[in-house]
């Protein structure tokens, strides 16, 4: 009998007070695609980091292909035939593909011989797995899907038999995801072993042979993919059944709250990031923006929120023209009833070293309710935050605790509480549930729907297509800074959306650009 490619037994790891892995067992059969799922903080990244030698386990053993292995550093892991493709690509942008793959295998003082060896190996591998990559292309010119292939090739060239992919689809279009899955199946067919770490149930169902589920540092089960369903897996992940669809009634749209006309944004280099975007959002409706991240959604939100100055175009709120990024900065816009949940709460929405109470008044620190005149009243600030925490079930409900110590879901609830609670007329929400666990996702979705039903206008940006389709009353799709189409969520398909997200439009443009 063939020994399993990976056998991890009794892996235990603590980080101070946090018990990240509790006696975890994981067995992965050679030549299969194995899924590893769990909520944020379930311990999957820790387990994979132990396997790849980033951390040493406190207890437990690892056997690779039946051979007990001591993996102390990533170099040990590579030596044992393990390769890892990180969520954030580890590539040198100004290098060519060959130069990137060669890193760590330069072969002496002069690189010519190493480069030649790597080049022939690259060609051999890309033929064997029909991966189409030009070895002399400069990495900064490549699309995201190609970058990922370079990462995979990098691991394979170093002799990996076992590939670990951490959240591999986060940045890909649906078509690129399909291509990746075909590649992964082909790799498994050739006898390679693939582990994919994700929290997307649909991908697990689509590509894996077997799936292991982690919850709170424990391995709660390994099942054959064919014999399970997304609902069963979700239940294993959170320990109870959750509603994956959002229950909501029909929208009752009122007057136009937000009108955007021909909005253009250029970045610091002068590149057009937002290309003549026009849209309206009415009171009592949720307009969703779908698209792969980096296609102008951030620029759109930031321009409307007054963070980024548009190069041309008009924005009006309740019929009043705004001078976004000029006279109207985020502060004055907030006073006019515009609230903004930023896409990246770590970068913008919170100040991580601050106490939760201080993060909970970001953008409102000038309001009279936090103190008199120039001064802030600590008791008022704390009490306000305690009220927000109670209303949004933020745990732990401790306003004095440092913001960074809250989980992603609780941080996001804090941001939502801050932005929703002041009765906004228009709410901009970017990535409402990125890095948020399933329990909190449900809570956040319900709050957004409740806000809509209270007659507020909501502009929602999410790269999770399911989320946009489930929450929105109308969906706009963005690609390359343009709106490529508008659909009603119940009258579209994933293929249709995928084409729009890739920039393929069936409609003729209204006017010549």
């Amino acid at each position, binding site marked *: 009998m063939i020994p399993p490619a990976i056998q991890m037994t009794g892996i235990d790891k603590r980080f101070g007070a946090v018990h990240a892995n509790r006696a975890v067992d994981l067995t992965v059969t050679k030549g299969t695609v194995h899924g590893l799922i769990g909520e944020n903080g379930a311990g999957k990244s820790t387990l994979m980091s132990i396997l790849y030698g980033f951390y040493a386990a406190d207890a437990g053993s690892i056997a690779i292909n039946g051979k007990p292995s001591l993996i102390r550093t990533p170099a040990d892991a590579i030596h044992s035939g393990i390769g890892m493709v990180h969520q954030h690509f580890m590539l040198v942008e100004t290098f060519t593909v060959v130069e990137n793959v060669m890193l760590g295998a330069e072969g002496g003082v002069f690189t010519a011989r190493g480069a030649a060896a790597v080049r022939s190996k690259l060609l051999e591998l890309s033929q064997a797995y029909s991966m189409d990559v030009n070895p002399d292309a400069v990495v900064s010119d490549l699309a995201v899907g190609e970058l990922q292939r370079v990462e995979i090739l990098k691991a394979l060239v170093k002799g990996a038999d076992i590939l670990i992919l951490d959240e591999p689809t986060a940045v890909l279009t649906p078509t690129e995801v399909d291509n990746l899955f075909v590649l992964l199946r082909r790799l498994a067919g050739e006898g390679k072993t693939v582990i994919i770490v994700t929290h997307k149930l649909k991908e697990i169902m689509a590509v894996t042979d077997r799936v292991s589920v982690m919850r709170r540092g424990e391995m709660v089960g390994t099942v054959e993919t064919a014999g399970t369903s997304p609902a069963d897996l979700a239940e294993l992940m959170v320990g109870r059944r959750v509603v994956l669809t959002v229950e909501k009634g029909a929208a009752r749209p009122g007057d136009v709250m937000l009108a955007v006309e021909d909005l253009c944004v250029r970045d610091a280099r002068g590149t057009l990031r937002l290309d003549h975007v026009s849209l309206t959002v009415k009171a009592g409706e949720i307009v969703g923006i779908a698209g792969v991240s980096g296609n102008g959604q951030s620029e759109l939100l930031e321009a409307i929120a007054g963070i980024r100055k548009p190069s041309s175009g008009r924005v009006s709120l309740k019929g009043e023209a705004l001078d976004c990024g000029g006279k109207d900065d985020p*502060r004055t816009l907030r006073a006019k009833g515009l609230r903004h949940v930023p896409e990246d709460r770590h*970068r913008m929405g919170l100040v991580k070293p601050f106490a939760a109470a201080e993060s909970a008044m970001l953008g409102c620190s000038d309001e009279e309710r936090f103190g008199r005149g120039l001064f802030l009243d600590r008791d008022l600030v704390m009490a306000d935050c305690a009220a927000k925490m109670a209303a949004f079930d933020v745990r732990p409900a401790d306003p004095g605790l440092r913001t960074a110590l809250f989980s992603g879901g609780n941080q996001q609830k804090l941001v939502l509480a801050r932005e929703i609670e002041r009765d906004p007329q228009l709410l901009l929400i970017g990535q409402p549930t990125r890095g948020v666990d399933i329990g909190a996702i449900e809570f956040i979705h319900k709050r957004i729907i409740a806000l809509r039903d209270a007659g507020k206008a909501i502009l929602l940006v999410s790269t999770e297509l399911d989320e946009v389709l489930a929450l929105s009353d109308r969906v706009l799709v963005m690609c390359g800074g343009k709106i490529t189409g508008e659909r009603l969520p119940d009258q579209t398909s994933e293929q249709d959306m995928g084409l729009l997200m890739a920039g393929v439009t069936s409609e003729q443009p209204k006017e010549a650009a």
Partner: protein
Amino acid sequence: MSARPAPLWLIAGVVPLVNVAVAFLAAGLVIALIGENPLEALQIMLRGALGSQYGLGYTLYYTTSFIFTGLAVAVAFHAGHFNIGGEGQALMGGLGAALVALSLPFLPWPILLPLCVLGAALAGAAWVLIPAYLQAYRGSHIVITTIMFNFLAATLLVYLLVGPMKMAGSMAPETARFVPGATLPLMNQMAAWFGLTLTRTPLNLSFVFAILAAIMVWVLIWRTRLGYAIRTVGANPDAAVYAGISPARITVIALLISGGLAGLMATNEILGVQGRLINEFTAGAGFVGIAVALMGRGHPFGIVLAALLFGVLYQGGAELAFDKPKITREMIIVIQGFVILFAGALEMMFADRIASLYQRFAGQPVSA
């Protein structure tokens, strides 16, 4: 998935103490190497700095300057900037005080003295205005520009003191004496008003100003809207933009406050002790302020304590050099260097180890 953080008293209390202890240990080794008894040296230092009214007076006099320059560095730190130009801003503070004192000698002291203090603060702030503007709106690094402005301040002062501002008929690079109404009373003079007799030392009213400044900085940073904006800009400029706080504007404001505090250092030396403007009166206090702010972890209370430590080192070191000819003035600078190295630059070297020791002995809290 980070470990539960160690309690504040451990990081803010025990860690600095361990750092200082290690610094003294290293300095003790050097003293032993040149053939002196380190314990005896330590005893002389402590007795010299704290063992008499005379010693204590000098210690607190040094401390006063370090509190001002330490606070100056700390305020800029909170806004995310490294104001390394305390030296130049303090020199200009002296110039500001001197210009007021020499040009308005006819004013009664209750008006003249506050104006002199204000002049010191405003001149210190003015000297950082250009670097602050360049940092905020042009992205020129504040470290580079303030270092250059230190040189500019030093040369400007030399030019003025050998030229336009030199006292007529004097050979020394210094101005004329200020009128008495433009100088701060010494501590022993103030004690005499209450019938107390203190040894005459350079310690003067500006020590009280320094303590008040520390309290005001604490209120500013942790209890005002402006302080909140300063900390937001320092901790996360993107979040500040999102909140509608202009990082450029806050940078300029925070650096002006920083420069003003550095300028106030001149109240100690110029208004308190010299009673005239002299050359190079800062004697490196601007740079010691960086070490003080680092060691005090940007907190006014910590800064007062760290300033006191450096005051002890300065005064005790002078006594030691006097008592032990083998231990020269340069040796004292070596000892101060060790304190800066271990307590400032290597501030966090032992922090992790101390924290993990604490966690082992305090027991494992319930896992989250």
